[in-house]
């Protein structure tokens, strides 16, 4: 194809050049695989092709002939002094070249084990990856590692470049065996498109033109494939997401919201929903780089104006109301540790996700992935180049999509709060079984939709009949702190005084409603979620509920309050020290001390003292406690009403 290109004059050439699209690709392999030679060859030959295209060229070419010479292409690529001294490439280097079909950006990354960080960096912006294999060596550990990272970063196209075919006599069987081995491995990973090419970078076989040395190969040469691979549909055009980057207010008449469209298509007149405010409006103007347009799509940078004055600032996100992202403070992600300094799992980091920056806490490392074997291992903290699946909780909710569905809204970086280095990068996973997310028991969106029922009985009538307002008295405290003693006496006292009351405690609930759950944090969280829903239903019907559950985490208690209704949730804290509890339940604490019992609050699970309980009770002061609670109920017009 290149050979038959007709001569163009310069204006035609420029007009055509201007219409080319851009392909960003990554090359993975070590120097030994002939990677630098391959890149050098692509850069060199494409330039030649380019020049041959121009009619005027032949007149005064001063170039030194390079066609058959054994140029050391690797020298073309060297960059930094330190690297030159070491004789290796140690970072991501970006190279640029173009042909008459396309422009290309190469992210050149080294293949050495310790440089996962660099490869991940290069892969983050690539549409395609070339995985280089030495035909003599076949699929080796390094190949698997590279492929795993490519799949982790969500690259949709792979070229398996089997290099040095000249050293295996251009044998078709060698090539086929490598392809088979590779395909077996790749099925475990999520890569939709693999294209295999036998080549010799040094001799130029199948790099630019199809090689006469391998007539058995009927596919495309590397460059032809790179020029023709379709990447247009790799982007997400369904879910409109505009992370607001900058609010533009040049004067009182104009108020625009600027940002780069992360995904989806926006049209003038579209209804949009602003997050987190959930206010809606219509798009009145879309200003693109070339002025006003009627629609816009990724990755355009735009400024839009809205019909209504709604409060929107940097970090917010504009979406279509019928295609909403997930809005959550807790999620799972694959995390790659990028810092020389080992992770401090108890530190709080900054997370930058789209245009929003907030604080984030690492809840759990589920497992670390060995990039060579893909095996899972447990891990307490990550070191440089380690990859793990983790659970994170942010201070403010993020608006995101799973990474595999949306690269732009599913990725984030973590920033060390002290050094300000980018210490880790992450890709958000798909939504999981709620049981897996041990500290998230409600979903804000779900909450808005909770069905309140269509009872024919009026709330006032219920209040009058029961002489009370439905409310939940939630008693929290350690195992053996005397919660149940208080709960049962309180139930009796309320009943005696004429209240309509229900009592829920751990053993009652566990004997039936939650008998399949274990005592892990996830099991405990799910138990609490169910209890809270029961409380809400009973409170809705005007019943008073007494609950006696350890509920050791403040953020879980907050979520319970949100679920039941803040005004109906009254937290009673059993203020005791752990020695008192040990005396009450010696067997239990002994088992935990010996490590035979896991997840006991106060021992190997932290019990967080409530920040603002409604009441604080001391054990063995039953009369005083009851008196205080009764006063509280009367004061807050809960019971009795008259």
């Amino acid at each position, binding site marked *: 194809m290149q050979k038959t290109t007709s001569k163009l004059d310069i204006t035609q050439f*420029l007009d055509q050049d201007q*219409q080319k*699209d851009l392909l960003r690709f990554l090359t993975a392999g070590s120097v030994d695989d002939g990677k630098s030679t391959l890149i050098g060859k692509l850069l060199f030959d494409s330039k030649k092709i380019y020049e041959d295209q121009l009619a005027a060229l032949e007149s005064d070419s001063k170039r030194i002939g390079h066609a058959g010479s054994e140029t050391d292409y690797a020298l073309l690529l060297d960059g*930094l002094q330190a690297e030159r001294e070491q004789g290796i490439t140690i970072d991501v280097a970006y190279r640029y070249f173009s042909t008459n079909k396309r422009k290309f950006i190469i992210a050149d990354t080294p293949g050495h084990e310790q440089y996962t960080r660099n490869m991940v960096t290069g892969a983050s*912006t690539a549409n395609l990856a070339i995985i280089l294999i030495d035909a003599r060596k076949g699929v080796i550990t390094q190949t698997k590692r590279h492929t795993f990272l490519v799949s982790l970063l969500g690259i949709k196209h792979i070229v398996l470049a089997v290099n040095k075919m000249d050293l295996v006599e251009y044998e078709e069987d060698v090539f086929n065996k490598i392809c088979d081995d590779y395909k077996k491995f790749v099925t475990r990973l999520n890569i939709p498109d693999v294209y295999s090419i036998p080549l010799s970078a040094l001799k130029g076989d199948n790099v630019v033109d199809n090689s006469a040395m391998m007539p058995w190969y009927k596919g495309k040469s590397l460059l032809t494939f790179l020029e023709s691979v379709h990447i247009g549909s790799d982007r997400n055009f369904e879910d409109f997401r505009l992370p607001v980057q900058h609010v533009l207010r040049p004067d009182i008449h104009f108020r625009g919201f600027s940002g780069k469209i992360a995904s989806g298509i926006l049209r003038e007149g579209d209804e949009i929903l602003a997050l987190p405010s959930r206010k809606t409006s219509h798009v009145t103007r879309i200003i693109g*780089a070339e002025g006003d347009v009627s629609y816009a799509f990724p990755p*355009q940078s735009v400024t839009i104006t809205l019909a209504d004055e709604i409060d929107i600032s940097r970090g917010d996100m504009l979406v279509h109301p019928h295609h909403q992202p997930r809005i959550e403070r807790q999620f799972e992600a694959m995390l790659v540790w990028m810092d020389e300094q080992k992770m401090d799992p108890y530190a709080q980091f900054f997370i930058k996700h789209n245009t929003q920056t907030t604080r984030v806490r690492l809840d759990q490392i589920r497992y670390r992935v060995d990039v060579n074997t893909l095996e899972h291992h447990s891990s307490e903290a990550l070191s440089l180049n380690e990859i793990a699946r983790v659970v994170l909780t942010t201070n403010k909710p993020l608006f995101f999509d799973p990474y595999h569905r949306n690269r732009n809204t599913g990725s984030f970086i973590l920033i060390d709060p002290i050094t300000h*280095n980018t210490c880790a990068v992450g890709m958000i996973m798909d939504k999981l079984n709620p049981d897996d997310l041990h500290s998230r028991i409600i979903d804000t969106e779900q909450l808005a939709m909770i069905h309140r029922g269509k009872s024919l009985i009026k709330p006032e009538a219920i209040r009058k009949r029961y002489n009370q307002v439905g409310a939940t008295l939630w008693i929290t405290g350690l195992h053996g702190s005397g919660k149940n003693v208080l709960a049962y006496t309180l139930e009796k006292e309320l009943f005696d005084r004429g209240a309509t009351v229900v009592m829920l405690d751990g053993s009652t609930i566990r004997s039936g409603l939650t008998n399949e759950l274990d005592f892990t944090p996830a099991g405990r969280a799910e138990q609490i979620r169910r209890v809270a829903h029961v409380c809400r239903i009973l409170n809705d019907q005007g019943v008073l509920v007494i609950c006696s559950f350890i509920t050791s985490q403040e953020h879980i208690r907050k979520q319970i309050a949100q679920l039941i209704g803040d005004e109906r949730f009254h937290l009673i804290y059993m203020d005791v020290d752990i020695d008192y509890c040990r005396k009450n339940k010696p067997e239990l604490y002994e088992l935990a001390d010996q490590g035979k019992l896991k997840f006991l609050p106060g021992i190997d699970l932290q019990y967080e003292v409530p920040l603002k309980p409604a009441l604080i009770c001391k054990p063995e002061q039953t009369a005083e406690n009851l008196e205080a609670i009764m006063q509280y109920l009367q004061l807050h017009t809960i019971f009795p009403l008259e």
Partner: protein
Amino acid sequence: MPMNTFTLNNLRELEAEAIHIIREVAASFEKPVMLYSIGKDSSVMVRLAEKAFYPGKVPFPLMHIDSKWKFREMIEFRDYYAAQNNWDLIVEYNRQGYASGIGPFTHGSKVHTDVMKTQALLQALDKHRFDAAFGGARRDEEKSRAKERIFSFRDQFHQWDPKNQRPELWDIYNTRVHQGESIRVFPLSNWTELDIWQYIRLEKIPIVPLYYAKERPIVEIDGNLILVDDNRMPAELAKKAQIRMVRFRTLGCYPLTGAIESKADTIEKIVEEMMTITKSERTTRVIDFDQVGSMEQKKREGYF
């Protein structure tokens, strides 16, 4: 609507990327500045900044570090377009160096560049307490730049450590710095020289006429074609001047910037000529050849 309505060509994709970068800086830093060198890349960068905030005004100033040895036509161009476009333009120079009469003819390119360019820039950044500075550098220009980040972190002495760069993934830029530290930002990182010319052509961006071929008085010094731009050139050199048809591929201090013989007097002809010359763009800059890895050395010291 067919799918291909939703693809951007290379130039528009680069444009979108650059605008995103420029806005990110404006939204994240307290006091950004755009370094304006008057060259063609700077002109493209300024146009992108204007687009990023349209219909508003660019919310940060442009700053030109004047080495006092720039081509006269560059200064005329700068002052004319700054006035015409109502730019908020700051011009700074190393006053002490100027008073001491530092110049390339008397002190050599190394001392001149260090005092009147590098030191002048660092002084100006400190004086105005800028926490982010845009530069027009491209990765395809020079080997050491191929590995530099778009957001390039500098310590409190404005130094770049190539071994300790922040990872940069997707289009998420880490904009956090401590007091006194800063970031250099290169929105044109992914542009090639051809992209720049294409964009100038497409957007009709004015550039300094020195880029176009014209008959000019030229002296050959150590193989470089140097323009006799003013009477500070030593007379024994200036008297050897010959009128030659030349143009400049890069602009800087006139005694340090070599011209090339050329007849290219339109953008189209420049591109045509460019495609046939294999010497890379910076080879007409004298300073790059002072020492091995010279540009990298200068970058470590704080020069772009």
